[in-house]
């Protein structure tokens, strides 16, 4: 397999790597760059555990080749700008709501939710459900996840940073 050099912009830093043209972005992030928060769950674009933000939009990293995203801005959960040193407010909301059990779906869930709240200041529970339909969770039954996203949207409005 011939390899090509790609430059990936991930969480504000540029990484240079040699990958086969068939190297999935998911594998490049998880294995080549060691980002354990981007996870393989299905490879079909169905489950959402490989969710990243590509120029701010949630996409499945298992449906892209690494060579396709040169010059794009990739954000993973661990690259979220944190309000304090520790964590991003959406992480606090998930923590307090008990919205993670096994935690495998959690990073993808939060990134998708983040993009929703970015667009929709006051999402209803139905809006949240609609947006998260592509992020499967086998553990929580979703109730607490929807609670956490609702709380995050509420806090974000409270901060007044959206308007």
């Amino acid at each position, binding site marked *: 397999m011939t390899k090509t050099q790609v430059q990936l912009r991930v969480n504000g830093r540029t990484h240079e790597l040699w990958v086969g043209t068939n190297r999935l972005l998911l594998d490049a992030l998880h294995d080549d760059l060691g980002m354990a928060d981007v996870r393989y769950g299905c490879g079909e674009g169905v489950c959402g555990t490989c969710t990243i933000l590509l120029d701010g939009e949630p996409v499945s990293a298992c449906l892209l080749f690494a060579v396709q995203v040169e010059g794009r801005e990739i954000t993973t959960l661990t690259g979220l700008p944190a309000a304090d040193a520790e964590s991003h407010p959406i992480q606090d909301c998930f923590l*307090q709501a008990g919205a993670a059990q096994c935690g*495998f779906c959690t990073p993808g869930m939060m990134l998708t939710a983040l993009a929703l709240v970015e667009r929709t200041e006051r999402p209803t529970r139905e809006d949240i459900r609609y947006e998260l339909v592509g992020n499967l969770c086998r553990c929580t039954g979703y109730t607490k996840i929807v609670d956490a996203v609702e709380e995050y949207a509420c806090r974000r409005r409270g901060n007044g940073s959206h308007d």
Partner: protein
Amino acid sequence: MVAMTEAIESAPAGTTEFTVVGNSPAHHDFQDKVQGTLRYGADWKLPGMLYGKVVRSLQPCARITAIDTSAARELPGVVAVLTASDVPFNKVVDNASGGLGELTVAQPVLAEDRVRYTGEPVALIAATEPEIAAAAVDLVDVSYADLPGIFDPEEALEPEAPLVHEAGNVLVNWRIGRGDAAAAMAAADVVITGEYRSQHVEHAYLEPESGVGWSDNGVLTLRVSTQVIEHASQIARILDVSENKVRIIASYMGGGFGGKEDMTVEPYLALLAWHTQRPVRMVWDRQESILASTKRHPFVMRYRTGAKADGTLLAQEIDIIGDAGAYPCLSARVLFAGAALAAGPYRVPNITTRSRAVFTNNVPASAFRGFGAMQVVFGYESQMDKLAERLGLTPTEIRDRNQVSKGDTIPTGESLHTAVELTATRDLALARLGPRSTATGPGCRVGRGFASGMQPYGRTIWFRDHASVWLTLQTDGSLLIRSGVTDLGAGQAASLCQIASEVLGAPLEEISVYIGDTALNPPAGGTFATRQLYMSGNAVLSGARELRDSLAAVAAEELGVPPDTLVWRDGMVRTADSSGQNRGIRLAELAQMCQRRGVSTSNLHTWRARGGEFDPEAGQGDSFPDYTYGTHAAEVEVDTETGVVRVLKYAASHDVGQQINPVRVQGQIQGGVMQGLGYALMEDHALIDGQPVSTLFANYLIPTTMDMPDIEVDVVESGEGCGPLNARGIGEPPVGPCAAAIASAIKDAIGVRPNRLPITPERVLELIDEQAAGRVAKDGDHE
């Protein structure tokens, strides 16, 4: 204020002043999970690591005539190709469960001369890159000669049926019997019959089977996503090395639900790492997982229920057939649980239950949350509803007349020794539904139903279960818990911290829990059968109390008060407050004092569950340590044009004895309901002659956010359970009642009772058509 010892031991639940237990600290694994920093099975990499793949059979039943691995071996980057002849001991034998006439059938690690299900492992590949390993799989050329297969467990019982194993097609035959069911049935005023069918269900944990294996200092180490590190002994047998040469480390799992209770990647990783002497990672593709991982058993359940005219149950005759698939796995035990729980939480003086696990050439079925005791809820609750209807009683009345209470005898002949709060759970769940919704369209109908259930927690008593834990107070006052427990994501490890903190007063931030390592932790048994809070929770509770007793002697001397008046809290041991002379010692100081006096600050403790015997001949004896009871209530809307069932409201209530962490309890119940609703309405791993209709996650539908209503939870705390501080297990219980509650609500909406799962739109339309054609009996059952 009384000392903590007193408070914990003597106060009834609800009034007990716990400081840590009963709260929901967002600590330990929760933190890493929201940070995205937890390292799962696939998140591990070592220098020189290879990537492993399994070559699987594409035939459900065939003789292997040749395996040509030469092309695969020649592919650059391929380091090893292994087949059956490379496996030192090519057998996995599940320990006998104790059932009647149970067959001993070994499952080969790699198929040798024949394959028995589609997806059965035939060869192994290790290569320098995952893409190369995948390409090599396609280059292994296996020649098959078809053999006649058998795919329906009922057909497999027929005398002329092809044999899946030479020993026979019936793996085990359980019988539970009490009284004279035939005579009582004959004397009954009313007899209700029913046949209920369930389907193959995929666990669909989001983290696929995965792990890394390496060998180091002559010891093979596997770090895998598993519920059971005790498989190390099986791995040693397979490699033909002694058990001290195999170490298994369980990573925190991205879900398991029983699907990581049998071995998954372990034997393959072990063989590849052992042969190549290089680290190997193996992650099953989702499609491979759907194809080849174990499933929940489809059950065929036939009930005859006899009662008096006033609704009092007289007799049950129950026959259960479970499709075990091609190999035993844990089928014998699953079918035992089905047999033992088949009559549900109702008094039945006369009962005969037969429960058989039957081999077919389908994918093996094994443990899955609910473990046989969940399938039968659909059977017994449907029977109760039908009986009520026949007698003109309400579903509540029929249950009030028959529900078990503490002290009652169940079909195995045991008596229930803890509280049964079914009525309380039912009242709560029904009240939660609130006012009835109105239908949203002309073709839509709203219906309501409820179902109760009981689910054992803890292993069957005759396995004489035990769990060990090792607690150490460090000289800086921090606490180490070492336990062989594995963590499914339900807070198994974190709850141990809460219990230890409650007893010893060490703050949660100063407790570390090291789990899931056969080399470094005392064995705790696997995480299954809703047993870890019960087993390891009790081990930590009694181990921490023992440790506290030895520390208390030193503290009491130092403070000049009796040891049992000491209060352990906030990282300190203090004298009781009442005198106003509150004095205390920090745990760090106390640990140092102990050290100076030669008093150990470490305690290795083993907790043993009650033992007992079961007589399979008589179908009587000890079965499970205790049960968790609960009731679910559902409101659905059925679109009679499309057959689509929408769950409008769902409420679940369980008695958990005493909550250790209420948020995690709620989470278990809400998540269990999600799996139960998927089982009821959509999930079906359909097979045609042993071949899956699809192995895509896109086609195996599990509930999404759009399918799930908010799950309302009410917890009852009876203060009676066999777990630590009177807790009951809650891992499995919430999946049981869902399908029955939904079926009952659908019956209420459309007038016909579903008797087959999942209740898909197609099946709903069929039911409606049957009704229109007048083929439905008065009580909603099919004629």
